[in-house]
Structure formats: C-alpha cells, structure tokens
C-alpha cells in the first residue's frame, strides 16, 4: 500500500491518463445524458446563451420516429443472424485448424488476413463481387449475362443470377449480402480467440477420451465445447456488442444512403440513425438514441452473462 503522505505521488503519476479519460470518456458520457434530457437542444443556440426545457421529449420522439423501428429491426435481425453463424463457423474452423499439423501456420495467417485489412475496402470488394454492373438484360428484365463474380459462380451451378445489391434488389438479398460480409469480417478475431482457447486445453483430456473410445463428434460436443465455453462466451458477448453497433459494413457496400439505389434508408441501423440525427443537428435525438442503444446492449450483455454462467461449469 502507498503511504497516505505519499499518495499524491501516485495521483501525480496517474494524472495524465486520468485527465485524458475525464475529457474524452467521462465528460462525453455525462454530456450525452445531459443533452438527451434537454428538449429541442441545439448546440449553437446553447453557445448563444439559450436555455432548454428539461424532459423526456427526445426519447419519446426517437421511439415514435418511424425510421427508429426500421433501424432497430435491421440491427436486431443482423445480430441474430450473424452472431450465431459467425461463432459456429469460427468454432469449426478453429477446431479444424487446431487438429491439423501441416500448413497450420500458413492457414492461420490466411484466416487472420481479413482482420488486418480495411473493412471499407473489403466492403467495396464485396460490392464489386455482388454487383450486376455490365449485365445484359433480356426481355422482361431477366439478367442474361453479368460481370458480378458471385452471380457467375452460382450460375456455374445452374442457379439463376440474383440482383443482390443494385437498384430493384429485394430486401432479403441485401440482408444476405450483409450477413455474408459481416460473418466473413468477424471470423478472424473469433478464430484467433477460440484457437487460443483450444491450444490451452490440456491434451490429456483428448488422450483420455481416445482411450475411452469416444467418437469424434462426442469429443467435440462433450469435451471441446464445454472446456471452451469461457472463450465462446467472450466471443458471443463481444459479437453482440459489435453487432448492435453495425454501421460501417452497410456504408461499405451500400454507401451512405444505407440501402440500394431507390430504397435508401431501408438498411439503416441504430448507429446509422445516430449519425443521421447528428448530421441534421439533432443532438438531442442522437443522444437519446445512443442511450437507448446503450440500454439495449447492456440488457443483452446481462442476459448473455447470465446464460453463460449457467452453462460454464468450472
């Protein structure tokens, strides 16, 4: 323990970090709460000396705003689709990677590459892959030929080309592209964490299981998954938090309109809504929406923690 006379020294050494934290973390949080509770708040007006009524009008306005439900729906839908999917795929890849000897390091590097690439750039690559630019439309607007890579690949298997992201595309085609992109983007981090967890499992459990003639799938479900459950919990919680903050993936593929041409805003998310409000100088709305998002993430995380505690046994 630090002697009380000496404690000023401790505070001195902590002060640079503390000052930065107060300015850039603590104050913005407090200010967000404050602004969200001020009705018709305008930052420029406040600088001019205006005062605002205290109340919950911002929250009411955000919740009753028609786009709010669209954004919340999209956010929840993307979360519910991508979190389990990416976790399961990451788990399978991690287990597969862990069980091979040759090329393990090389494959590990390949699987980790998306993590160190810019997600906007990758989004543009996805946009190109799913595009139908250069398409020749036959009679009745049927797609006859296309330069989009994905359509060419599925065409090889005899599947009709699909309008994924361009004008006139369906909502579910858009969601499918987003899910593929988000899952692909989320894999490397999850694989890394799960692989680390796998390598920490004592090999003796597997030897013991082998001697007891345990089938492979049972080794996976009864030994690997339970022993990995702390890591899986971590991955799921961070994935949900990331999922509720989904925004950049949509911008990357569909642009700032948050939707294909002619259907802008259709794919908006909670964070998108916050940005929109900010860009329209509706700071009060943005703050209220941010707090609502915070509350949702908080509740979901609590539920996650509760469920995982019940399922983590040691």
């Amino acid at each position, binding site marked *: 323990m630090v002697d009380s006379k000496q404690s000023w020294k401790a505070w001195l050494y902590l002060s640079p970090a503390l000052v930065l934290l107060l300015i850039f973390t603590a104050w913005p949080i407090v200010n967000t709460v404050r602004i969200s509770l001020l009705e018709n708040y305008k930052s420029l007006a406040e600088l001019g000396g205006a005062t605002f009524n205290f109340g919950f009008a911002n929250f009411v306005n955000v919740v009753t705003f028609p786009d709010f439900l669209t954004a919340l729906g999209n956010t929840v839908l993307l979360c519910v689709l991508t979190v389990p999917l990416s976790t399961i795929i990451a788990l399978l890849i991690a287990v597969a990677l862990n069980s091979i000897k040759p090329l393990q390091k090389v494959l590990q590097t390949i699987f980790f590459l998306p993590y160190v690439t810019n997600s906007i750039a990758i989004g543009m690559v996805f946009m190109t892959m799913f595009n139908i630019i250069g398409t020749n439309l036959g009679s009745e607007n049927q797609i006859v030929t296309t330069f989009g890579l994905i359509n060419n690949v599925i065409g090889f298997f005899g599947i009709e080309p699909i309008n994924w992201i361009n004008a006139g595309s369906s909502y579910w085609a858009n969601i499918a592209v987003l899910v593929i992109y988000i899952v692909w983007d989320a894999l490397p981090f999850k694989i890394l964490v799960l692989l680390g967890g796998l390598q920490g499992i004592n090999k003796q459990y597997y030897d013991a299981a082998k*001697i007891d003639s*345990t089938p492979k799938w*049972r080794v996976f479900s*009864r*030994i690997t998954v339970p*022993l990995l459950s702390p890591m899986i919990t971590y991955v799921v919680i961070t994935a949900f938090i990331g999922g509720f903050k989904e925004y950049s993936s949509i911008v990357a593929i569909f642009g700032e309109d948050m939707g294909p041409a002619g259907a802008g805003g259709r794919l908006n998310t909670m964070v998108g809504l916050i940005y929109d409000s900010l860009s329209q100088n509706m700071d009060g709305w943005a703050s209220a929406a941010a707090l609502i998002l915070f509350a949702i993430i908080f509740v979901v995380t609590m539920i996650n923690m509760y469920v995982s505690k019940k399922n983590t046994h040691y």
Partner: protein
Amino acid sequence: MKVVLQNLTKIFPSRNKKVDEEVVAVNDFTFEIPDGKLIGLLGPSGCGKSTTLYMICGLQKPTSGQIFFGDDDVTELAPENRGVGLVFQNYALYPHMTVKQNIMFPLENLRGEDKLTKEEMISRAYEAAKLVQIDELMDRKPSELSGGQQQRVAIARALVKMPRVLLLDEPLSNLDARLRLQTREEIKRIQRETGITTIFVTHDQEEAMSISDLIVVMKLGVVQQIGKPQEVYDNPTNLFVAKFLGTPPINVFKGYVENGKLYLSKAEEKPAIEDDAAEIVTENANAIAPSMKPGLCVLDVPGIPDKEVYVGIRPEGFVPNPNGKFIASLSNIEVMGRDVSVVCKHDAALSPIVRAIVDSDSQIDADAQTVAFSLKPHKVFVFDAETEERLYFEVK
C-alpha cells in the same frame, strides 16, 4: 489377460533435423506379463517407462516390435479399440462434469451390442465408485475433491468399462506422503478384487516394491531386471539396480578382488604385493586410522577372478563386531527407535557417508573414533568395475 511385449522398441526422431540425434526411449523390451498380476515399471525419469505404458495403451506407436493382449496382436490397433483403462498422472478428469458423469463417460461411448441403458450405466458407475469408495461424492465436481479423491475417481473411470488391462501412469506422484501410503494399499486391494492385469509406472522404488507382484527395472530404455520385488532387491543383476532399490540406499565402495578375497580401497592405493599389505595391516594396526589402511580384506569371495570391482553393501548387511574387518571412522549415530543408523565415513566409499542399519540392542560407543563391523555375505554384492555387472561368489 496376459500382456506380451515382444522386442518392443520406440525411437523418437531428432527434433533438430540437421543433427542426427534420435532418442531410443525403449530398446528391445521383451516381457510376458502374467494374467491378473500387478506389475511395476520402475526407473528414473527418462528411462522409457511411461513410453512403454503409452505404447501398451496405443497412444504411441512402437517403432518396432509387437504387443499382444492374450493371443491378439494389438500392435496396430488404435487405442480406442484396445479395451484398456488408463489413469493419467494428473488424472485428466473432465472438469466440467460431475464425478458421476466422469465415471459414466466411457460407458456412454459403448456402441452396438455393448450399448447400455441409462439405468445400467448408473448402476455400473455406482459399482465402480463403491469399489474405490467414492460413492458418496458422485454429484461433486472434480475441483471440489481432494487429490486422493480425484485419484480414486480416475481409477473408477478407468475400471468402469471393465478394461482388459489397467494402466496407471505415476498414480501416486501427486499425493502427499500419507495419502500415498494409503492409496497404494488401495490400488493393491482394487487390483486384487478386480483381478485385472495392471501395469503401473513409478520412479519411486518403495512404491513399486511395496505393492507389485513383479517389478521391471529400466534404465535409458533398456530393461535391467525383472522379478519379484524381494528377489530383485536381494539379487540385483547390476550396480544400477542395486543402487536404485532400497532406502536407505546401498553403500557402494571401490575395491578389488585378489585370490578370492575382497578388498576395499581406491585402486591407486592397491599395494603391489598382497603379503606386504597384510604386514602393514598387522604392524600399524594401532598407529593410523584403520579405514585409511589400504587393502584390508573384508570378505572371502570365492569364485570371483582377480579384478577391480565395485562393492555394494546393504545398510542392513553390517553387524557391529569389535573384531570385524570392515572398519570406518564414525560420524554419528541416529537412533530411530527399533533400529539404529550408524553414519560413518570410509575412504573407499563412492558417497560421502556410509550408512549402516543395526539392531538397537547392539552397543556402539558414540564417542569412539572408529567403528568395526563384520559383513553379512548375502548382503554384499560385487560388481565388475567396467561393465557394472554382478559378479557372483559362493556364500558359505
């Protein structure tokens, strides 16, 4: 189920590809383990005993040689098809399962004809648990058990599927001294009750001697001696075995044999003419410390040719005798109740001290400078100084 090991050899390739340094972990191990016996594989670390065990259970493939369970050649069989039970050194209990789930786990893997109903599994698990006396702990997690209890769970899990062979890898090394004594009796009892051929690995000679029906002493991958514990102790085939077995350890001296007589001394002090030496002995008996005198004959060893030797004398092989020919300078006496341990120094000894265990009735003057013993011939072993192999002599 008898287990036959035939010319079993395991060579680990060199880790460094540039240097050709392969490690022969087990070298040409041939042995038939009789049905229903408890076998102790004994040796210092790195002697290949665990590798042998892992080859028997199939987790490691032998480089050459064969393994038979009964008449079945199991050399190429995967571990899951061998029907062995293995207790790991760290028990390897699944931490997320209760004791009951741990014990039932091997049963749940049974398929086809052997498939059991839930009730059968539970009753088998309780049977195994009763055998190792943990049936009251069935709903606990391994982390809530003591080391000894975890050990029992591990044994129960290995026994529950009624293995053809039970293998134990250093089963007692993680237990404290008191628990170790208790548990090794338990292992012996369980083995007797089940009658399963059991092989266990240990580096603790006392452990191996106390419970094994047969012990196999290994060194650097090579089997040194196989036999009943008492036989091996009483009749070691080489210096290594003699040194490895026994607490306190055997006392080893340098010496030489001439004309069927055993002398203790350093080789360079060996007098040119034996008769002269005898004269020196008689002339200067009172002048210099007796143990300093080279070439004092300690024992008749008829049948051994003249050569340099190592002499091993068990601590219990010394009998206090004022006229005895083994004379050493006395350091101190440790009274241990039933026995007395006489600690002394001898020039020819390879270790700094020589320890003799004698009856507490024998009167030894603790203040004396020297102490004299006569030797029990069957507790004295003579080994060739070069090969370290035993040289046998006739005990009269």
